[in-house]
C-alpha cells in the first residue's frame, strides 16, 4: 500500500447526500444542497487548517463522490454543481448498484458516509468502515467538523456484554459489535492524529464520545481505549439509558459512528 495514501483519510459520500437530486430544477441552475454539504465544507476547513500548519501535510481528508446508477445527464449536472459550490472532491466514482461495495473496496475507502442506514449496513457487511451521516438542523456551515463515536461499541469488552443482552441484543449481534470495534480503530487513530495537530481550543475538528446505555465504567473503558488509539476526545457523554435525541440535537455531529447499535428514534 502506498504510504502516502495510507495517511489520507479517504471518505466516500453518496452523491444523493451531497446534492438533492430529487427536486426538479432548470438546466442552468446548480443542484440543491444535500445532507452532506455541511460535512464537506467542514472537512475542507479542517484540511485548510492542516495545510496551514505544514505545507507538506499528508494527513488530510480526501472526499470521493460515489454515484450509484446515475444517468449521464445527472453526471454532468453533478460535475457542474460541484464546481459551482467550490467543493473539493478528489474523485467522482460512478458505478452500478451491483458494483457499489466493490468500488468502495477498490478505492481504499477509510470511511463511507451515508444518511441511508441500509447503505451503511451493506457497506459494513462488505467490510468497509461506514458511519451515519447526520442531518444538520440548520444547513449553515459550521466551522467545526464534529465526529461522534459510540462509547457502547468502543467500551465493549469480553466481560461487559451482559448489559447488551439485557437490552435484547442476541449473540450474533454482539459478535458483530465486537467486530465493529475493530473497524472503528483505524479511522479513530487517523482522526486522533489529526486532532493532535491542533490545540485544545480553536480546533476545526471536534471529537465526541457518547455512551447511551453503558455504565460510567463502560464509558471510562471507552475513553481509555480511545486514548490508547491516540485519540483524546473533546466531549464525553454518558446517558445511562436517557433518550439520546435531545442531546444529539444540541451536539449536531456530522458523523455518527455507532454501527447501527443505536436507534435514533425516541425509545
Amino acid at each position: 500500500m502506498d504510504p502516502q495514501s495510507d495517511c489520507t483519510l479517504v471518505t466516500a459520500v453518496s452523491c444523493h447526500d451531497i446534492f438533492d437530486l430529487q427536486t426538479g430544477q432548470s438546466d442552468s441552475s446548480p443542484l440543491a444542497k444535500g445532507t452532506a454539504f455541511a460535512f464537506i465544507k467542514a472537512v475542507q476547513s479542517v484540511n485548510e487548517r492542516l495545510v496551514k500548519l505544514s505545507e507538506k501535510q499528508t494527513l488530510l481528508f480526501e472526499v470521493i463522490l460515489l454515484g450509484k446508477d446515475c444517468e449521464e445527464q445527472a453526471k454532468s449536472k453533478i460535475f457542474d454543481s460541484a464546481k459551482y459550490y467550490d467543493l473539493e472532491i478528489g474523485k467522482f466514482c460512478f458505478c452500478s448498484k451491483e458494483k457499489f461495495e466493490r468500488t468502495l473496496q477498490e478505492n481504499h475507502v477509510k470511511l463511507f458516509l451515508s444518511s441511508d442506514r441500509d447503505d451503511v449496513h451493506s457497506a459494513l457487511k462488505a467490510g468497509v468502515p461506514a458511519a451515519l451521516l447526520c442531518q444538520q438542523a440548520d444547513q449553515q456551515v459550521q466551522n467545526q467538523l464534529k465526529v461522534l463515536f459510540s462509547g457502547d461499541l468502543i467500551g465493549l469488552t469480553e466481560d461487559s456484554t451482559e448489559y447488551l443482552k439485557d437490552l435484547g441484543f442476541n449473540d450474533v449481534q454482539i459478535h458483530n459489535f465486537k467486530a465493529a470495534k475493530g473497524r472503528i480503530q483505524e479511522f479513530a487513530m487517523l482522526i486522533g492524529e489529526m486532532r493532535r495537530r491542533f490545540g485544545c481550543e480553536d480546533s476545526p475538528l471536534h471529537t465526541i464520545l457518547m455512551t447511551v446505555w453503558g455504565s460510567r465504567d463502560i464509558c471510562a473503558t471507552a475513553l481509555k481505549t480511545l486514548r490508547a488509539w491516540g485519540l483524546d476526545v473533546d466531549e464525553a457523554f454518558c446517558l445511562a439509558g436517557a433518550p439520546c435525541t435531545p442531546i444529539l440535537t444540541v451536539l449536531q455531529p456530522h458523523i455518527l459512528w455507532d454501527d447501527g447499535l443505536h436507534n435514533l428514534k425516541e425509545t
Partner: protein
Amino acid sequence: MNKINHQQTANNVETQSVERMKAKDPPTPSKKPKSPKPQNAVTIAVSSRALFNMEFEQQIFEQKGMEEYLKYQLDHETEPFAPGPAFPFIKALESVNEQLRNLYPDSEELFDVVLMTNNHAHAGIRLINSINHHNLFVERFCMTGGNSPIGYLKAYHTNLYLSADSSKVREAIEEGIAAATMFSAEKVTQVSETQLRVAFDGDAVLFSDESERIYKTQGLEKFFEHEKTYENKPLDHGPLKGFLEALGKLQRKFYAKGHRIDCPIRTYLVTARSAASSGSRALKTLRAWGLETDEALFLAGAPKGPMLAKIKPHIFFDDQMFHIEGAAELGTVAAHVPYGIAQKMPPKKTKDI
C-alpha cells in the same frame, strides 16, 4: 467510608496534596439500579467543582492555562478528588432514593444526579475514578469540553443546577432553570446522612423580587405598607419555586406510607420577613400555590447564620451574598441564586429582607 472531609483553605496547598489518597480498588459492584427516565425523575445537575474539591487544579488553570491544567489532571488521574461543597447534598439525595426505593420499588420518581461539567473529556477518567472512589450514584454525565451546558440541562429536564461558575448559573436562571452558585467553605458542619434538609430564602428565591424591589428603592416602611395592602395577593414565583414543588411531590410519597413525622426530606423557609406582619403574605402565597415548607422561620431582619447553624441544612438558597457569607461563616453550605434586584444594588448591611 463516607466521611465528609473538611475543606482546606486555598492557601494550604501542601496539606491538600498530602490529603489526596490514591484510589483504592472500587468495591465489588452489586447490580446497580437502573437510572430513571429524565422526565420522571427530579434531576439535579452538578458541576465538577461543586461536587468535588478542585481548587488546586482551578488555580493551575487560571495561572498556567488549559494545556497545563489538562496535563495535571492526566498525571493525577488515579488520585480521586476530595468532596466539594455539594457533596453532602448529593449523598443525602442518594439516601432519600434508597428509602424511596424501599417503599416504591417500581417507581421512577427519584432523584437523579447528572454531572454537568465544562471540563474536557481528558479529565473524564479522573472524574469517573473519583465517583467510583466515593461510591456515588452518578451514572449520567456531560463533559462539554468548553461548550455551554444550557442545551444539555434542558435535554435532561433539569430541576436544579449547581455550579461553582456564577456566569453559567446566571445563564441557566435566565433560561428558566433553577440554579445556584456554590462556594467552597473553610468550615462545614456535619449534616445528617439520612434526612435531606433544604432551606430557602423567600423573596427572590421562592418568590419573585417584586417586594424586595420596593424595600430597596423605597425603604422599609413602604415595604411594610405594601405587603399589608397586598397581603392576600399571592406573590409571583421565583426561580426555586419549581424545586420546592418537586421536593413536595416526593415528600407526599413518604406521607402516603405513614412517614410524616420522620420524613427523610425536610424543607425550611428562612426569611428576613417578620412573623407579625410581612411574613403573612409569604405563607399565604405558598398556600395559594398548594405548597408548604415544614418549618418557616421569620427572622425580622436578624442574621440568618445562627438559625441555619441550628437547622443544619445540606443546602441553603439565598439571593444575597450578605446572607450567603453569614451562613458560611457558621458552617452552613449556602448557594447563591443570582436573581432579582439584589444583584444590581450594593448590599445593605442593616435590616434586610
